[in-house]
């Protein structure tokens, strides 16, 4: 009796906490989205009516940042999906998979997520100052920063089943490494690769820390543009910018959620 009351109380408490946390995160987003359509966000939000002009404004002045971000993220995803999956395959199938070099390599790979983005951005900016104008540095920064994400997702998938024996079986039947990867291994881990790729895409789309130290006035990404609009323009512009970003990111994270669910089933 007493127990069931306590457990009920806990359930209610947990529910309230979840509700509060969610509200804490979601309410500001709702306000931001609403605010982006407000002609004037003052004491009240819609006292001067609705408008689309902040969006026109963003597209006019910051349209290029969206294009650049899409381009950089697309290249990052393609490069890292290929490199990350290949590297994970190589590492997991290596004959000496437990050698200290491989362990060292894996630890090096996790560094980018352990080191604050600011530090990576600063380091890249200082070390390769010459390359900064070309924008290639932003791309490199994104690739380096997001690589561990897909690498770890794919190594996790490869280690979950005994893919090493599967790989060896394919080899003994006459398949070379590239054919083995594409006909035997990849089909079995494609959901993990896809979810790793979406993770990379999300991280790259929203990357701010590194990019902030590497952008130039002509090569600005969406999050940097968003920051600039919040910092120096009207709040409604920033809100429109944020809404645009959410339109990009939310479907991706929903898809990611769904993939992760199907993986565990």
């Amino acid at each position: 009796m007493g127990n069931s009351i306590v457990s009920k109380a806990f359930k209610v408490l947990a529910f309230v906490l979840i509700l509060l946390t969610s509200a804490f995160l979601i309410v500001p987003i709702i306000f931001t989205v609403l605010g982006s359509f407000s002609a004037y966000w003052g004491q009240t939000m819609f006292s001067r009516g609705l408008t689309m002009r902040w969006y026109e404004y963003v597209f006019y002045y910051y349209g290029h940042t969206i294009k650049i971000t899409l381009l950089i993220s697309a290249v990052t995803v393609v490069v890292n999906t290929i490199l990350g999956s290949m590297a994970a395959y190589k590492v997991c199938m290596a004959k000496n998979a437990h050698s200290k070099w491989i362990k060292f390599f894996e630890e090096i790979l996790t560094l980018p997520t352990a080191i604050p983005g600011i530090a990576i951005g600063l380091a890249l900016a200082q070390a390769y100052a010459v390359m900064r104008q070309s924008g290639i540095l932003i791309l490199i920064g994104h690739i380096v920063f997001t690589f561990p994400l897909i690498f770890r997702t794919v190594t996790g998938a490869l280690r979950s089943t005994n893919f090493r024996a599967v790989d060896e079986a394919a080899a003994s039947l006459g398949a070379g490494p590239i054919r083995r990867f594409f006909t035997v291994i990849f089909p079995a881990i494609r959901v993990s690769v896809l979810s790793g790729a979406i993770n990379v895409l999300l991280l790259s789309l929203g990357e701010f820390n590194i990019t902030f130290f590497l952008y130039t006035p002509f090569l600005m990404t969406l999050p940097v543009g968003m920051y600039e609009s919040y910092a120096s323009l009207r709040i409604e512009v920033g809100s429109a910018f944020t809404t645009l970003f959410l339109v990009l990111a939310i479907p991706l994270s929903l898809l990611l959620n769904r993939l992760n669910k199907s993986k565990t089933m």
Partner: protein
Amino acid sequence: MTRKTHISIKHISKVFPDGTRALHDINLDIAEGEILVLLGPSGCGKSTLLRTIGGLEQKSGGDIYFYNKEVSQVPVEDRNVGFVFQNYALFPTMTVRENIAFGLKLRKMAKAEISRKVDSLLEMMELVEHAEKKPRQLSGGQQQRVAIARVLAIEPEVLLLDEPLTALDAKLKEYLRIELGQMLRKLGITAIYVTHDQLEAMSIADRIAVMNLGVIEQVDTPERIYSSPKTDFVADFIGRINCVKGKMVSGADGLFVDLGFIQLPAPSGTEKRAGDEVNAYLRPEDIELVGTKADNSGNIIQAIAEQCIFMGDCYHVVARAGNEEIFFEVPNGARIKIGETVQVKLNAEKLIVL
């Protein structure tokens, strides 16, 4: 029957990058169509040897010949060996049919011929109704049959089986052990079979190579491995055996082994000399309970029963003879009380002295 040597392993050694020495100067000849079993405890190097022969591991030294061709530089993809793994290692996203056809597609065989060949293998392995299933829908035994069909499809030069039955449950294992042995014999394919299970080894092998700590201790037929082990390790590892420390002594009519509680005539052909300290081995089935009325002619000793354990089909008896403990089996009918003195006859002809 003398058969042509198919695989010849000369001075193969293997040291892993971390410095572990897995194989040490392995020499082994395997005849055409022979089924050779590599038997040993885990970590003895048997799997490493198999993988080195197949090209999944690189040797550190020595040579491997398939007929007269040195193959240790040939990558596994081109060595034309068929591996069967403990965990089946089927391709998870492919159907049974696609799994079996995999090697044939790589060999650019015509589609019609592939499907004909796959069909006949499906039939042979009794997998016809499972052809369109994915591996995860099959039982362990079925999966292993698919794995065998998959390697047989490519008609490998050598079949390499790495504990193929170990993951299966006991009953199925016993059934497949017989079936697999018959199949390998019928195919006449040269096969190397790794296991830690002696029963499996005995029932499948033409010859057994017993391995321990990276070396081959003895290569012989199952019968000789059992009846004439050449090293203490083999004697102890294969089957159950009594081991008593003894000393060689010369007697009136030849060499004897003094076990303390009895002197038994030394096995003929022993290289031991009088005065040598030896280990004397005798299997429990070579110790027979005899009644008190039995004649005293041959090698009978008195022993005090210390333990008598019911095993179902017999009793397992541990008895003290002098300062030594020996064990043997007695039929269900015989009642032995603990502390009772029993008379047993030792079959001196089966005595092994090492």
